[in-house]
């Protein structure tokens, strides 16, 4: 307990504010006094100080003005200290070097300058900005106004890799030295933005637009969870095997997104001795038969007045039946007398919904795969012909 408390205290004591913006634009230890507004008021153009900006092709280029550029106007004299006081610009000495950690982006200033895009289009009206110099960096929303995927002189590619750093396989580099890059809230479904439960609730987005996922994730990452080899400990917490039956019957979460009932589930249930012995496949771990997994009345001849009857349960959770049973279990009682396979329906109980023969479901299935009808009906069964 003491160790747990110590762990909690240690983690919570180092709480930090983090966000995608600080990952892209690392927080810089700027200790500088600077007013863009006062410089603009004196008619100083952007490229007077940022003289390398218009020709820069990389975001890693240091575009901050050098002391030499400042010295054009400011009397800097390190030797005699006869000029302006250092504190005019520097907040404390020794002055830290600025811009040590570059933005985690790919950016070509020259390409933008060649399109005659003014600095203020991205950096805003700095003539009114008296805040810290880094505050004028553009946000992704601003970029997307032009990078919208449309064609034309004022439009540009909307591909993420246009600006974001990528790995060799074309996916975005998310493990940045400044932190982990995650989508902004607006880009994620359910507004969770890779939030606290996104790992367990991303199905809606992945099923509908998996291209968004593969922007950053390789397919193998999907399979690392979805192939059911390793139990993700955060998804299936402690003692999950003991209680998985509740989730399976409710299908919450969707078991089939990682596990196939007729291989993963059935294979394990067979071996552990919880399957139906009538399938003829003996379990590896007896005793089977002394232990029942269904309540009384489960397989009574009539379902009426018995809410625990398997007919009702199968309607609600047929998937879970398939995790323990083969079709033979069902056919033993439900097959038609004309059946030539299996036990030929000793109880002859129709498993079909009411009015099956007149339903579109019946016709669709019979016209596309009549084999399934012949699992329980003989080839010359007149009942089959009614559906066709």
């Amino acid at each position, binding site marked *: 307990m003491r160790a747990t408390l110590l762990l909690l205290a240690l983690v919570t004591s180092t709480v930090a504010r983090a966000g995608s913006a600080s990952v892209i634009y690392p927080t810089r230890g700027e200790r500088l006094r600077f007013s863009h507004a006062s410089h603009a008021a004196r008619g100083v153009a952007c490229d007077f100080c940022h003289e390398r900006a218009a020709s820069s092709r990389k975001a890693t280029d240091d575009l901050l003005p050098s002391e030499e550029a400042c010295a054009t106007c400011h009397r800097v004299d390190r030797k005699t200290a006869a000029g302006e006081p250092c504190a005019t610009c520097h907040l404390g000495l020794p002055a830290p070097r600025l811009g040590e950690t570059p933005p985690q982006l790919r950016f070509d200033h020259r390409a933008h300058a060649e399109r005659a895009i003014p600095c203020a289009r991205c950096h805003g009206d700095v003539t009114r900005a008296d805040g810290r110099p880094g505050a004028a960096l553009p946000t992704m929303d601003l970029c997307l106004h032009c990078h919208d995927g449309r064609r034309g002189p004022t439009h540009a590619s909307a591909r993420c890799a246009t600006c974001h750093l990528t790995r060799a396989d074309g996916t975005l580099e998310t493990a940045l030295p400044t*932190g982990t890059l995650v989508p902004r809230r607006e880009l994620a479904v359910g507004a969770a933005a890779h939030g606290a439960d996104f790992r367990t609730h991303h199905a809606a987005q992945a099923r509908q637009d998996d291209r968004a996922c593969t922007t950053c994730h390789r397919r193998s990452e999907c399979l690392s*969870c979805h192939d059911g080899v390793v139990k993700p400990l955060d998804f299936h917490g402690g003692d999950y095997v*003991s209680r998985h039956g509740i*989730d399976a019957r409710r299908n919450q979460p*969707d078991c089939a997104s990682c596990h196939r009932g007729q291989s993963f589930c059935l294979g394990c249930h067979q071996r552990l001795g919880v399957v139906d012995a009538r399938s003829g496949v003996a379990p590896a771990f007896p005793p089977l038969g002394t232990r029942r997994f269904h309540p009384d009345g489960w397989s009574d001849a009539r379902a009426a007045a018995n809410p625990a009857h398997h007919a009702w349960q199968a309607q609600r959770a047929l998937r879970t039946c398939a995790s323990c049973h083969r079709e033979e279990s069902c056919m033993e009682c439900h097959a038609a007398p004309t059946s030539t396979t299996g036990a030929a329906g000793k109880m002859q109980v129709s498993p079909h919904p009411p009015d099956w023969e007149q339903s579109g479901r019946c016709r669709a299935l019979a016209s596309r795969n009549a084999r399934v009808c012949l699992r329980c009906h003989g080839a010359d069964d007149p009942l089959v012909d009614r559906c066709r």
Partner: protein
Amino acid sequence: MSPTRLVAAVTLVAAIGGTAHGYDFILDATTVGQAYQLRAGDDTLVNRRRLTQSLALEIMNLGPRDATGRPLQRNQVSLSVLMRFSGELADFADLPAFSGRTPDRSVARERLELLWAYAAVEGLAGVVDLRLGRQLRVDLFDLRAFDGLGVEVRTPLYLALETWGGLAVSGAAPIDSPLYRADGIALGGNLRGGLAARQEEALQPTVGVAVRADRLPWLAARLSYQRTWSPTGDPRPGEPAWGTIEERVALTARGRLLDGRLVPWFGMRWGLLVGRLEELQAGLSAAFGDHAVSAEYVLSAPTFDGDSIWNVFGGDAFDDARAGWDFARGAVRVWARAFLRRFGGHALASDPTATAPGGGEAYGGAGGLRVAGRRGFVRLDGYVESGFGGRKGGLDLAGRLRLAGRDPDGVTLDGRASYVFFADERLAPGRDPATHSLGLQLGLRWVFLRGITFTVAVEENVNRWVTSQTRLMALLDVSFLVGTTGRGLVRGAGGAWP
């Protein structure tokens, strides 16, 4: 030295000593060892030990580059292979073979799987993508794979056309994976001569077409159709020569409105084989400030392959209403979820006097808090559910602490304590359905050189049936990237911890 040896030596030296030009190469090898205990039908504990080795190889960016060396978005060729070997050890043995039945292959003592292997050309003439070989499709609300050819053409009309065809991967071939097999016909253990046994290994040709929105930042939409069928193995009198395994049409759409603050989505899948709606999703999320809310409706019906009699049983869909709230400010995230699920039910053809009983609803809620710090995080999750299926409620306290190094490298410690109460009320009489369970998990992860990850995790559980149930997992993931875009290592994915 013989000419053959000379050629081999030159090839070896060239392969080892040469600098990679014109392509990038990724090798990702993962080894997972697991040992755990499962409670058998007679309440004894069964030991299961598994060894899984995955190997992914990718050669990419075989194509033109710009002046800075970056691959252009046209005429890029790549090769990708992912294979896996699984071994079963300890008591979790093969099932005894029964005469008159096909061998059980649901769990194999040793299994080699080829999860995918394809060659791809992207941006052919700037608009065509081709993929040939075993490939994965996340489509039609499911995960599928096939051996064949997939083609995508992007048109100037903000539309892209897709088509694909080949043989579906069903787990029946020697290096198939049952991962992609639709439920229905069991993989082994079927009576020989019966249709299930004859269709176990039947080839399954599959074709599909799709049209999707392309280059529209505010809309992702896709309409797709897929059909898979199979010949009848050793057909008997009256049996058709062919049968459809699955035939579906699906439509999905997702909007991104108000700069992403409003996201509506819709998805549906109609089963042409079974003549009914199989999946339906519709939802809306809205973000304002640090808050976001979402509401969603889901309909889901059980589906099986076309040879399964479960298609004609009365399996009903369930309806699900979900709501969520998220709050995120700085390093703090808070969330809450709720759901109400209504399971279907109808009268029986065999017993018209019987009507579906009540109790077909399930409902629940969950919530959590996560606080991140420079060296890790703590999170607390709680949930409670009741209704059809059973009752459960629990608390989950988890945390991570970085012991050494800087992200992504370093050593981290993960821990989780779980308390769960659950009552599985459909168990046989005489068994008390309710129990309490306590689980503890502890894991250590060491990442070094940005690409090598070593993870060990141990889990210990206590409940009414067992005083000690142990799970042990060790994972070694090695990912190398070598190429013209920069030599180095990339970090692998996977493992028990996020």
